[in-house]
């Protein structure tokens, strides 16, 4: 199915957020996720269903002021 990841169109097969992260290659990376504008905690990713057309944000630690 087609979803949008960090503003980029992506084709994925997995149907849960956790599995999609694995499929996209994030593995065990320390990232935060939001689905369709709503925060999804790491503890809920494995059961969080993702539908066609979903908008996914994946954020990582970065320098900040």
């Amino acid at each position, binding site marked *: 199915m087609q979803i949008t990841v960090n503003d980029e169109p992506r084709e994925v097969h997995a149907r849960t957020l956790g599995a999609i992260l694995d499929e996209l290659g994030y593995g065990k990376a320390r990232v*935060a996720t939001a689905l369709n504008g709503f*925060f999804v*905690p*790491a503890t809920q990713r494995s059961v969080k269903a993702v539908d066609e057309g979903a908008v996914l944000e994946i954020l990582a*630690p*970065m320098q*900040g*002021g």
Partner: protein
Amino acid sequence: MKFYGTELSSRLMLGTAQYDSPAILADAVKAAQAGVVTVSLRRESAGAQAGQAFWSLIQSLDVPVLPNTAGCHGVREAVTTAQMARDVFGTNWIKLEVIGQGDLLQPDVFGLVEATRILTEDGFQVFPYTTEDLVVAERLLRAGAEVLMPWGAPIGSGRGLNNLFGLRALRGHFPDVPMVVDAGIGKPSHATAAFELGFDAVLINTAVAKAGNPAEMAKAFRLACEAGLAGYAADPMEERDMAVPSTPTLGLARTLGGEML
């Protein structure tokens, strides 16, 4: 002075952005003996390791982190970013920025109050980046903030404390609220001035990161903060409009320059 129950090892908070290399950042944090470092979140593509490498570096420095919501221009965006930051960094602390005006990166104080309320109810301990406005401060405290972060001047401007009267009034009006002067500090003397006004900490980024020698500037800021804090604690004298001789006049010779007075 405690920030949400935590006594910091130093009143100098240091931002981690804009350094030319991770090594320069690490040297600056060590030279500053920073009590807190600020961090953020950004998009990263799969396979990219910058974020993970940065987080490893920060962990190795063993300094408490204060995540921010930099770049957020709305309440919902700031709240979601704060929630994501808590998930990644494992702290309830959040430096809450809701930017309302692009040229000056001026806080949207209305959105800031609303986001503070939402995040406090969600268990966050909010450090709101605000102006020196007393009424806004009152609303932020009512919304649940127990720390305030008034700006000295616009972010990255290096202009120092733009509104001394306003900052002094804010400090005087809420004497028991921990306050951090955040943004606009460009030189060590600006940091000293903030402490001399009675502020409890300063947050500095660009002034150190963009100095010719960041580690030396970090050290200078550390010393400036210590000087300002110690000076304020020592209860400075009152200013006067007229001169008062510092050398005792009692017993002064009656002749000066060979002339009898």
